C-alpha cells in the first residue's frame, strides 16, 4: 500500500486532463492513420493469421464502410475515423515515463491505494503487469482441468478449431457498425474455454495475463462455458485508466451451454477523452444462467447494452449495471434480453448517477419472440441526479410477439432528497460525507455483487467523486 497520501484538495477523478502522449518511436510496428483494406490486410499479416481470419477481417471492413453512423445514443460528431491508428504493436518495454503521468492521476492512484506495479500498468508506464509469478500456480491448476485461459491472438494460433467454430458466431460483423469495425481490426482480448462440468470457484481475472496484447482499443473476447460448467470472469479496474486512444470498441461473445452458469463482471473507468462503444452478447442455452455485472465510470461517451439471448427453455439471464456520469460525460448504457424460447426468464437492474452536468441514459430492450410463451421479465431502473445541471433519461423498449408472458417494468428518477441529507447531517456527517453515503447506498445492491476488492475500491471511488462537489 502506498503511504504517501496527498492532501484532500485538488483530486477530482472525473476531471483530469489527458495531457500525456505516447512516444511514437517505441513501437515495433504501427500502421498509418486511417482505415482501408491495405491496413486491414497488413494487420492480419503482422499477426500471421490463417486465411479465413484475413478474409473475415476484410469482409467486416466492407460492412463497416457500408453502414451509416447510428443516429441514436450519444453524440459522436467529434469522432474522426481517419484520425486513428488502428493497429500498433508495442515494443517489449513500452516507454511512457512515470514522470509523464499527470500529477492528479498519480494522486488518485495513491488515494485508492493501488499497488505500485498495477499503477504503472494502468498509467501505461509498464506494458506488462507483473502477475505471472503470483498467479502461476492457479494457471497450472486450471490447465489440469482442461480450462483454456489466454489472450485471443494466442488462442487463434493455439486453438484454431475452437476459434473457427465460435468466433463471430454470437456477434456477426453484420450486427452493427462498431461490431464490424472491431471484426476488421481486432487485437487482444481474452479467450476462455471451460470444459463440461468444470466449476471454477474463484473469479478469473484479466489481471492474470495482462500484457500489451490483452488490453487494447479493439479487444475481442470469446468465452465458451460448456455444459454444466461454471465460471466468473472479471475485467477492468475501478481506477481511472488512461488511454491516449480516443476510440475503444470491444466485442465480447459468450456462449453458455446447457446447465452452465457464467457471470461476466466489468468495471471500467476510462479517461475523459474516450469513446467507449462496446458490443457484448451472450447466448444462454437450456437451464443455464448468464449474468452481466457492468459498472461504467468515466469516458466521454459510453454506449453499451450487454445482451442475453435466451435460446432454450429454462435459460435465465440477468444484467446488473451501474453508470456514473460526471462532468462532460455521457453514459448511454442498458441491457437487452431476447426471449427466443418458452419458459425463459430475465431480469435487468440498472442504476445510474449523474453529477456535475453529466448525463446518463438507460436504454433497454426486452423482446419476446413468437412462440416463446411463459416467459418472465423484470426490469428495474433507478436514476439518481445529484445537481440541477445533470440529466438522466430512460428509453425502455418492449417488443412482445406472444400473449402468455409476464413483463414488469419499473423506473424511478430521484434527486438526493434534502430530508436524507439533513437526517444524516444531524448525526454529525458533513454534507459531502452524507451525499457520498446516500450515493454509496444507492449502488449498494450492485456493489455487493462485486468481488471484495472491487467493492472496496468502488466505494472509495464514489467517495472521491463526491468530495468537494456539493454545496
Amino acid at each position, binding site marked *: 500500500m502506498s503511504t504517501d497520501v496527498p492532501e484532500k484538495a485538488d483530486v477530482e477523478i472525473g476531471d483530469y486532463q489527458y495531457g500525456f502522449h505516447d512516444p511514437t518511436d517505441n513501437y515495433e510496428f504501427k500502421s498509418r492513420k486511417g482505415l482501408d483494406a491495405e491496413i486491414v490486410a497488413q494487420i492480419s499479416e503482422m499477426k500471421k493469421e490463417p486465411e479465413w481470419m484475413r478474409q473475415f477481417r476484410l469482409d467486416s471492413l466492407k460492412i463497416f464502410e457500408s453502414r451509416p453512423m447510428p443516429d441514436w445514443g450519444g453524440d459522436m460528431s467529434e469522432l474522426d475515423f481517419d484520425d486513428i491508428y488502428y493497429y500498433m504493436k508495442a515494443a517489449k518495454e513500452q516507454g511512457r515515463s512515470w514522470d509523464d503521468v499527470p500529477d492528479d492521476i498519480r494522486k488518485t492512484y495513491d488515494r485508492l491505494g493501488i499497488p505500485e506495479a498495477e499503477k504503472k500498468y494502468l498509467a501505461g508506464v509498464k506494458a506488462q503487469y507483473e502477475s505471472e509469478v503470483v498467479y502461476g500456480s492457479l494457471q497450472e491448476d486450471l490447465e489440469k482441468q482442461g480450462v483454456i485461459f489466454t489472450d485471443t491472438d494466442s488462442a487463434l494460433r493455439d486453438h484454431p478449431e475452437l476459434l473457427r467454430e465460435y468466433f463471430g458466431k454470437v456477434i456477426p460483423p453484420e450486427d452493427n457498425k462498431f461490431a464490424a469495425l472491431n471484426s476488421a481490426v481486432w487485437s487482444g482480448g481474452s479467450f476462455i474455454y471451460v470444459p463440461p462440468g468444470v466449476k471454477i470457484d474463484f473469479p478469473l481475472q484479466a489481471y492474470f495475463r495482462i500484457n500489451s496484447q490483452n488490453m487494447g482499443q479493439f479487444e475481442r473476447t470469446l468465452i465458451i462455458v460448456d455444459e454444466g460448467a461454471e465460471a466468473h470472469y472479471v475485467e477492468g479496474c475501478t481506477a481511472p485508466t488512461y488511454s491516449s486512444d480516443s476510440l475503444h470498441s470491444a466485442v465480447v461473445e459468450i456462449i453458455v451451454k446447457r446447465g452452465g452458469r457464467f457471470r461476466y463482471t466489468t468495471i471500467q473507468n476510462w479517461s475523459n477523452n474516450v469513446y467507449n462503444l462496446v458490443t457484448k452478447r451472450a447466448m444462454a442455452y437450456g437451464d443455464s444462467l448468464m449474468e452481466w455485472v457492468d459498472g461504467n465510470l468515466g469516458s466521454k461517451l459510453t454506449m453499451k447494452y450487454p445482451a442475453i439471448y435466451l435460446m432454450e427453455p429454462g435459460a435465465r439471464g440477468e444484467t446488473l449495471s451501474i453508470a456514473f456520469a460526471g462532468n462532460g460525460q455521457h453514459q448511454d448504457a442498458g441491457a437487452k434480453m431476447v426471449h427466443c424460447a418458452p419458459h425463459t426468464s430475465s431480469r435487468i437492474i440498472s442504476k445510474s448517477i449523474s453529477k456535475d452536468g453529466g448525463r446518463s441514459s438507460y436504454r433497454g430492450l426486452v423482446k419476446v419472440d413468437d412462440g416463446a410463451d411463459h416467459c418472465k421479465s423484470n426490469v428495474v431502473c433507478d436514476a439518481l441526479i445529484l445537481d440541477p445541471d445533470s440529466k438522466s433519461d430512460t428509453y425502455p423498449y418492449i417488443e412482445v410477439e406472444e400473449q402468455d408472458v409476464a413483463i414488469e417494468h419499473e423506473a424511478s428518477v430521484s434527486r438526493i432528497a434534502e430530508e436524507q441529507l439533513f437526517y444524516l447531517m*444531524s448525526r*454529525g456527517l458533513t454534507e459531502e460525507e452524507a451525499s457520498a453515503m446516500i450515493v454509496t447506498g*444507492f449502488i*449498494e445492491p450492485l456493489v455487493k455483487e462485486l468481488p471484495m476488492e472491487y467493492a472496496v475500491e468502488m466505494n472509495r471511488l464514489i467517495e472521491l467523486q463526491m468530495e468537494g462537489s456539493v454545496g
Partner: protein
Amino acid sequence: MSSLLKITDLHVSVADTPILKGVNLEIRQGEIHALMGPNGSGKSTLAYALAGHPNYSVTSGTIEIDGVNITELEADERARLGMFLAFQYPVVIPGVKVADFIRHAISNIRNPDRKEGEGLVGMREFRKEIKSRMEELGMDVEFARRYLNDGFSGGEKKRMEILQMAMLQPKFAILDETDSGLDSDAVRVVSEGLAKLSGPEMGVLIITHHERLLEFNPPQYTHVMLGGRIVETGDASLAHDLHANGYAAIRERHPEAAADNAQAEAAAV
C-alpha cells in the same frame, strides 16, 4: 459546570411564512422539559430549527450553547456540539447499513478533528458497544446489518432513533413525538430506554401528546406552545392537567396565540 442551551426570542420562517414568533427557552444538562401544544402550534418547527434544518430559517433571535451562538451553524456542526433530534418521521436511507452509518457518526462526534478515512472508532469496540446498547433497547442485533429505516415498522424506527441517541450521547436531546404511533409495549420500551439514558449529562426536551413517556421521565418543566409561542410554563402537574382537560383553557387565556394557531391549522389542511 453543566451546559446550557439558551433560546432567545427565536423567530423562524418556513418558505417565508413566519411560524415561530419569539420563543424563549433555557434547558440545562440534566433537566427534563416537556413541550406540549395542539397540532400546528410549531413544536416540530422548533425542533428542526434547533437541529439546523436548512429550510427553517431563523429570521431573528439566537440559539446558544454555553454562550456560543450556534444559530448560523450547519446541522453537522451542531451535532458535534452535542445537539440531537429524534425525528418525528425518521428518514429512510436505502442501501446504508445501520452499523456503518452509526460508526461513522459516532466517529465524527467523538473525534471531531479526525481526517476523512482516519480515526474511525475501532471495529471491535464499536461492535461491543452497539450490541449492548441494542440489547438494552430490546432490539434484535440483526438490525445493525439492515439498511437504515428501510422497511422498518413505526416502532422499529423510533427505537432506531433512541439507539442513535444512546450511541451519540448528546448533551441536548429533543424527542419529537417519539411515542406517537406506537403500541403500548413499544411506548414502554422507548420510555424505559430514555429513562436509562438521560441523567446528569443530558438535557432533554420531550415533545409529546401522551402521558406515558413523561411517567417514566418526569419533567421538571412543562411548556405549552400555541401559535408559535410558548404561552405557559409550569411543572409536571401542568402536563397532567393538559392531558386530562385539553387546551381549551389555554386557548381562552391566550386568545391572540389561539387565533394564530387556528390560522396555521387551517392553512395546513
